[in-house]
Protein backbone atom coordinates (compact mmCIF):
# COMPACT_ATOMS: atom_id res chain seq x y z
CA UNK A 1 0.00 0.00 0.00
CA UNK A 2 2.76 2.31 0.98
CA UNK A 3 4.79 1.75 -2.17
CA UNK A 4 1.63 2.11 -4.27
CA UNK A 5 0.86 5.58 -2.90
CA UNK A 6 4.49 6.73 -2.78
CA UNK A 7 5.10 5.83 -6.41
CA UNK A 8 2.60 8.19 -8.03
CA UNK A 9 3.38 10.89 -5.49
CA UNK A 10 7.08 10.76 -6.31
CA UNK A 11 6.27 10.73 -10.00
CA UNK A 12 4.07 13.80 -9.54
CA UNK A 13 6.76 15.53 -7.50
CA UNK A 14 9.37 14.69 -10.12
CA UNK A 15 7.08 16.03 -12.83
CA UNK A 16 6.51 19.16 -10.79
CA UNK A 17 10.22 19.69 -10.27
CA UNK A 18 10.91 19.02 -13.94
CA UNK A 19 8.36 21.62 -14.95
CA UNK A 20 9.93 24.02 -12.44
CA UNK A 21 13.26 23.75 -14.23
CA UNK A 22 11.61 24.34 -17.59
CA UNK A 23 9.82 27.42 -16.30
CA UNK A 24 12.80 28.77 -14.37
CA UNK A 25 14.30 30.62 -17.35
CA UNK A 26 14.60 34.36 -17.07
CA UNK A 27 15.09 37.16 -19.53
CA UNK A 28 15.17 40.96 -19.29
CA UNK A 29 12.87 43.85 -19.93
CA UNK A 30 14.35 47.27 -20.59
CA UNK A 31 11.89 50.09 -20.11
CA UNK A 32 12.72 53.61 -21.21
CA UNK A 33 10.43 56.53 -20.79
CA UNK A 34 9.99 59.78 -22.64
CA UNK A 35 10.13 62.17 -20.82
CA UNK A 36 12.61 60.60 -18.36
CA UNK A 37 10.37 61.19 -15.34
CA UNK A 38 6.81 60.54 -16.45
CA UNK A 39 3.91 61.12 -14.10
CA UNK A 40 2.35 57.76 -14.93
CA UNK A 41 2.61 54.70 -12.72
CA UNK A 42 3.63 51.58 -14.61
CA UNK A 43 2.65 48.01 -13.83
CA UNK A 44 4.13 44.79 -15.12
CA UNK A 45 1.10 42.52 -15.05
CA UNK A 46 -0.28 43.57 -11.64
CA UNK A 47 3.03 44.47 -9.97
CA UNK A 48 3.59 48.21 -9.63
CA UNK A 49 7.06 49.24 -10.77
CA UNK A 50 9.30 51.60 -8.83
CA UNK A 51 9.64 55.01 -10.52
CA UNK A 52 12.22 54.80 -13.31
CA UNK A 53 15.60 56.27 -12.42
CA UNK A 54 16.76 58.62 -15.18
CA UNK A 55 13.94 57.28 -17.32
CA UNK A 56 15.45 53.82 -17.55
CA UNK A 57 14.96 50.44 -15.91
CA UNK A 58 16.30 46.99 -16.60
CA UNK A 59 14.28 44.25 -14.97
CA UNK A 60 14.87 40.55 -14.69
CA UNK A 61 11.65 38.75 -15.51
CA UNK A 62 10.43 35.21 -16.01
CA UNK A 63 10.20 33.93 -19.57
CA UNK A 64 6.78 34.42 -21.14
CA UNK A 65 4.36 37.13 -22.14
CA UNK A 66 3.56 39.88 -19.62
CA UNK A 67 1.46 42.98 -19.88
CA UNK A 68 2.80 46.48 -19.35
CA UNK A 69 -0.01 48.50 -17.88
CA UNK A 70 -0.73 51.93 -16.55
CA UNK A 71 -3.37 53.35 -14.27
CA UNK A 72 -6.27 54.52 -16.35
CA UNK A 73 -9.07 56.85 -15.37
CA UNK A 74 -11.08 55.44 -12.52
CA UNK A 75 -8.11 53.50 -11.18
CA UNK A 76 -8.40 50.49 -13.48
CA UNK A 77 -5.31 49.16 -15.27
CA UNK A 78 -5.06 49.88 -18.97
CA UNK A 79 -2.84 47.69 -21.12
CA UNK A 80 -0.12 49.61 -22.98
CA UNK A 81 1.39 46.58 -24.68
CA UNK A 82 2.44 42.98 -24.17
CA UNK A 83 6.08 42.06 -23.65
CA UNK A 84 7.40 38.72 -24.77
CA UNK A 85 10.41 37.80 -22.60
CA UNK A 86 12.78 35.16 -23.95
CA UNK A 87 15.54 33.39 -22.05
CA UNK A 88 18.69 35.50 -21.65
CA UNK A 89 17.42 38.09 -24.09
CA UNK A 90 16.50 41.73 -23.61
CA UNK A 91 13.14 43.00 -24.78
CA UNK A 92 13.23 46.78 -25.07
CA UNK A 93 10.22 49.02 -24.84
CA UNK A 94 9.85 52.79 -24.70
CA UNK A 95 6.89 54.35 -22.94
CA UNK A 96 6.06 57.68 -24.49
CA UNK A 97 4.10 59.87 -22.13
CA UNK A 98 4.36 63.10 -24.08
CA UNK A 99 0.72 63.00 -25.10
CA UNK A 100 -2.24 62.65 -22.72
CA UNK A 101 -2.47 58.89 -23.11
CA UNK A 102 0.87 57.08 -22.67
CA UNK A 103 1.92 54.85 -25.55
CA UNK A 104 4.22 51.88 -25.96
CA UNK A 105 6.94 51.78 -28.61
CA UNK A 106 8.59 48.41 -29.17
CA UNK A 107 12.20 48.12 -30.36
CA UNK A 108 10.93 45.00 -32.17
CA UNK A 109 7.27 44.31 -32.66
CA UNK A 110 5.93 40.79 -32.87
CA UNK A 111 2.45 41.80 -33.94
CA UNK A 112 -0.83 42.58 -32.22
CA UNK A 113 -3.02 40.26 -30.20
CA UNK A 114 -6.78 39.74 -30.36
CA UNK A 115 -7.44 42.80 -28.20
CA UNK A 116 -5.36 45.01 -30.51
CA UNK A 117 -2.50 45.34 -28.03
CA UNK A 118 0.92 45.20 -29.66
CA UNK A 119 3.54 42.71 -28.49
CA UNK A 120 7.17 43.71 -28.05
CA UNK A 121 9.70 40.95 -28.65
CA UNK A 122 13.39 40.63 -27.83
Amino acid at each position, binding site marked *: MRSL*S*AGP*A*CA*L*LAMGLASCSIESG*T*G*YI*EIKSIPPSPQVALYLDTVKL*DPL*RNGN*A*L*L*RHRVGVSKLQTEGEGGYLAVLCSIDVK*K*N*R*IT*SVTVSATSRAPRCQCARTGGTDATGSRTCI*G
Partner: protein
Amino acid sequence: MLWAALLPILLAAPVPGVLAQTEKTPQELRTADDEFSRQLSELKRTFADLSKKFEDSAQTIDRLSDAQSARKEIEELRNDIGKLLGAVADNGTVWSLGSKALSHADEKLKSLEQETRYKQEDRQFLIDRWRELKESTEAAIKELEGARREFAELLRKLQTSEDFIDELLQIREHQRALDVIHTLTDGIRDASEKLKKLLGTIKTPGA
Protein backbone atom coordinates in the same frame (compact mmCIF):
# COMPACT_ATOMS: atom_id res chain seq x y z
CA MET B 1 1.55 11.94 0.37
CA LEU B 2 2.42 14.59 -2.16
CA TRP B 3 1.55 17.32 0.33
CA ALA B 4 3.68 15.60 2.92
CA ALA B 5 6.59 15.74 0.50
CA LEU B 6 5.99 19.34 -0.50
CA LEU B 7 5.26 20.75 2.97
CA PRO B 8 8.90 21.15 4.11
CA ILE B 9 9.71 22.92 0.83
CA LEU B 10 6.73 25.25 1.18
CA LEU B 11 7.54 26.00 4.81
CA ALA B 12 11.15 26.78 3.96
CA ALA B 13 10.19 29.18 1.17
CA PRO B 14 10.13 32.86 2.19
CA VAL B 15 6.84 34.74 1.90
CA PRO B 16 7.76 38.08 0.26
CA GLY B 17 4.83 40.14 1.55
CA VAL B 18 5.35 39.07 5.13
CA LEU B 19 9.10 39.66 5.07
CA ALA B 20 8.70 43.11 3.57
CA GLN B 21 6.39 44.22 6.35
CA THR B 22 8.54 42.93 9.22
CA GLU B 23 10.33 45.73 11.08
CA LYS B 24 14.12 45.41 10.82
CA THR B 25 16.24 45.18 13.93
CA PRO B 26 19.65 46.97 13.99
CA GLN B 27 21.30 43.56 13.71
CA GLU B 28 19.27 42.76 10.58
CA LEU B 29 20.16 46.13 9.05
CA ARG B 30 23.84 45.55 9.83
CA THR B 31 23.49 42.15 8.16
CA ALA B 32 21.95 43.79 5.06
CA ASP B 33 25.00 46.10 4.75
CA ASP B 34 27.39 43.20 5.27
CA GLU B 35 25.43 41.12 2.81
CA PHE B 36 25.80 43.84 0.18
CA SER B 37 29.59 43.90 0.71
CA ARG B 38 29.71 40.11 0.64
CA GLN B 39 27.64 39.82 -2.54
CA LEU B 40 29.69 42.58 -4.15
CA SER B 41 32.93 40.70 -3.42
CA GLU B 42 31.32 37.55 -4.83
CA LEU B 43 30.28 39.47 -7.95
CA LYS B 44 33.83 40.76 -8.41
CA ARG B 45 35.12 37.20 -8.34
CA THR B 46 32.53 36.27 -10.97
CA PHE B 47 33.66 39.26 -13.08
CA ALA B 48 37.22 37.91 -12.99
CA ASP B 49 36.07 34.40 -13.98
CA LEU B 50 33.88 35.77 -16.74
CA SER B 51 36.60 38.02 -18.10
CA LYS B 52 38.79 34.92 -18.50
CA LYS B 53 35.90 33.04 -20.09
CA PHE B 54 35.33 35.89 -22.57
CA GLU B 55 38.93 35.68 -23.68
CA ASP B 56 38.74 31.89 -24.04
CA SER B 57 35.47 32.13 -25.97
CA ALA B 58 36.92 34.80 -28.28
CA GLN B 59 39.85 32.48 -29.04
CA THR B 60 37.54 29.50 -29.59
CA ILE B 61 35.23 31.48 -31.86
CA ASP B 62 38.25 32.73 -33.84
CA ARG B 63 39.29 29.15 -34.53
CA LEU B 64 35.85 27.76 -35.37
CA SER B 65 35.06 27.12 -38.98
CA ASP B 66 31.61 25.73 -38.34
CA ALA B 67 28.89 28.36 -37.99
CA GLN B 68 26.58 26.10 -35.98
CA SER B 69 29.23 25.43 -33.32
CA ALA B 70 30.06 29.11 -33.13
CA ARG B 71 26.41 29.93 -32.70
CA LYS B 72 26.27 27.49 -29.78
CA GLU B 73 29.31 29.22 -28.25
CA ILE B 74 27.49 32.58 -28.48
CA GLU B 75 24.43 31.05 -26.84
CA GLU B 76 26.52 29.86 -23.88
CA LEU B 77 28.11 33.27 -23.59
CA ARG B 78 24.67 34.85 -23.53
CA ASN B 79 23.77 32.54 -20.66
CA ASP B 80 26.79 33.70 -18.62
CA ILE B 81 26.11 37.37 -19.25
CA GLY B 82 22.45 36.77 -18.41
CA LYS B 83 23.44 35.55 -14.93
CA LEU B 84 25.55 38.66 -14.28
CA LEU B 85 22.88 40.97 -15.59
CA GLY B 86 20.45 39.23 -13.24
CA ALA B 87 22.50 40.35 -10.24
CA VAL B 88 22.78 43.97 -11.31
CA ALA B 89 19.26 44.41 -12.77
CA ASP B 90 16.95 46.86 -10.96
CA ASN B 91 15.23 43.96 -9.25
CA GLY B 92 18.44 41.88 -8.97
CA THR B 93 20.02 40.66 -5.73
CA VAL B 94 23.13 42.83 -5.58
CA TRP B 95 21.32 45.94 -6.77
CA SER B 96 18.53 45.54 -4.21
CA LEU B 97 21.04 45.03 -1.40
CA GLY B 98 22.92 48.14 -2.52
CA SER B 99 19.74 50.21 -2.46
CA LYS B 100 18.89 48.90 1.02
CA ALA B 101 22.40 49.67 2.28
CA LEU B 102 22.14 53.21 0.89
CA SER B 103 18.74 53.81 2.50
CA HIS B 104 20.13 52.51 5.77
CA ALA B 105 23.07 54.94 5.62
CA ASP B 106 20.66 57.80 4.86
CA GLU B 107 18.44 56.91 7.80
CA LYS B 108 21.43 56.60 10.15
CA LEU B 109 22.71 60.02 9.10
CA LYS B 110 19.31 61.61 9.63
CA SER B 111 18.90 60.06 13.07
CA LEU B 112 22.47 60.95 14.13
CA GLU B 113 21.93 64.58 13.10
CA GLN B 114 19.13 64.72 15.71
CA GLU B 115 20.93 62.62 18.32
CA THR B 116 21.46 64.40 21.64
CA ARG B 117 22.77 61.58 23.85
CA TYR B 118 26.40 61.67 22.69
CA LYS B 119 29.14 64.24 23.12
CA GLN B 120 29.52 66.55 20.12
CA GLU B 121 32.83 64.99 18.99
CA ASP B 122 31.50 61.43 19.41
CA ARG B 123 28.42 62.27 17.40
CA GLN B 124 30.58 63.91 14.72
CA PHE B 125 32.80 60.82 14.58
CA LEU B 126 29.78 58.58 13.94
CA ILE B 127 28.39 61.00 11.34
CA ASP B 128 31.72 61.10 9.50
CA ARG B 129 31.97 57.31 9.46
CA TRP B 130 28.42 56.97 8.12
CA ARG B 131 29.12 59.63 5.49
CA GLU B 132 32.16 57.65 4.35
CA LEU B 133 30.08 54.46 4.22
CA LYS B 134 27.34 56.24 2.28
CA GLU B 135 29.84 57.66 -0.21
CA SER B 136 31.50 54.30 -0.80
CA THR B 137 28.10 52.61 -1.20
CA GLU B 138 27.06 55.30 -3.71
CA ALA B 139 30.32 54.80 -5.60
CA ALA B 140 29.81 51.02 -5.70
CA ILE B 141 26.23 51.48 -6.94
CA LYS B 142 27.44 53.86 -9.64
CA GLU B 143 29.97 51.28 -10.81
CA LEU B 144 27.26 48.63 -10.82
CA GLU B 145 25.17 50.93 -12.99
CA GLY B 146 28.08 51.06 -15.41
CA ALA B 147 28.37 47.28 -15.29
CA ARG B 148 24.68 46.92 -16.04
CA ARG B 149 24.97 49.20 -19.05
CA GLU B 150 27.96 47.23 -20.39
CA PHE B 151 26.34 43.81 -19.85
CA ALA B 152 23.08 44.94 -21.41
CA GLU B 153 24.92 46.36 -24.41
CA LEU B 154 26.94 43.17 -24.87
CA LEU B 155 23.90 40.95 -24.46
CA ARG B 156 22.04 43.03 -27.03
CA LYS B 157 25.00 42.81 -29.40
CA LEU B 158 25.13 39.02 -28.98
CA GLN B 159 21.41 38.53 -29.48
CA THR B 160 21.33 40.76 -32.58
CA SER B 161 24.35 38.95 -34.05
CA GLU B 162 22.79 35.58 -33.23
CA ASP B 163 19.58 36.58 -35.01
CA PHE B 164 21.55 37.75 -38.05
CA ILE B 165 23.60 34.54 -38.06
CA ASP B 166 20.36 32.51 -37.91
CA GLU B 167 19.01 34.45 -40.89
CA LEU B 168 22.23 33.82 -42.82
CA LEU B 169 22.16 30.11 -41.98
CA GLN B 170 18.56 29.91 -43.16
CA ILE B 171 19.69 31.07 -46.59
CA ARG B 172 22.82 28.86 -46.30
CA GLU B 173 25.27 31.75 -46.25
CA HIS B 174 27.71 29.91 -43.99
CA GLN B 175 30.80 31.92 -44.90
CA ARG B 176 29.04 35.23 -44.25
CA ALA B 177 27.80 33.87 -40.92
CA LEU B 178 31.34 32.92 -39.98
CA ASP B 179 32.57 36.39 -40.87
CA VAL B 180 29.96 37.92 -38.55
CA ILE B 181 30.96 35.50 -35.80
CA HIS B 182 34.64 36.31 -36.14
CA THR B 183 33.95 40.06 -36.11
CA LEU B 184 31.99 39.54 -32.91
CA THR B 185 35.11 38.40 -31.10
CA ASP B 186 36.31 42.03 -30.99
CA GLY B 187 33.21 42.92 -29.02
CA ILE B 188 33.75 40.00 -26.66
CA ARG B 189 37.41 40.93 -26.09
CA ASP B 190 36.35 44.51 -25.50
CA ALA B 191 33.88 43.29 -22.86
CA SER B 192 36.67 41.34 -21.18
CA GLU B 193 38.78 44.51 -20.97
CA LYS B 194 35.87 46.47 -19.55
CA LEU B 195 35.27 43.80 -16.94
CA LYS B 196 38.91 43.99 -15.87
CA LYS B 197 38.60 47.77 -15.51
CA LEU B 198 35.44 47.38 -13.44
CA LEU B 199 37.25 44.97 -11.15
CA GLY B 200 39.73 47.68 -10.35
CA THR B 201 37.16 50.41 -9.75
CA ILE B 202 34.49 48.70 -7.63
CA LYS B 203 35.39 49.19 -3.98
CA THR B 204 33.56 47.17 -1.35
CA PRO B 205 31.94 49.56 1.18
CA GLY B 206 33.31 49.24 4.69
CA ALA B 207 36.32 47.20 3.57
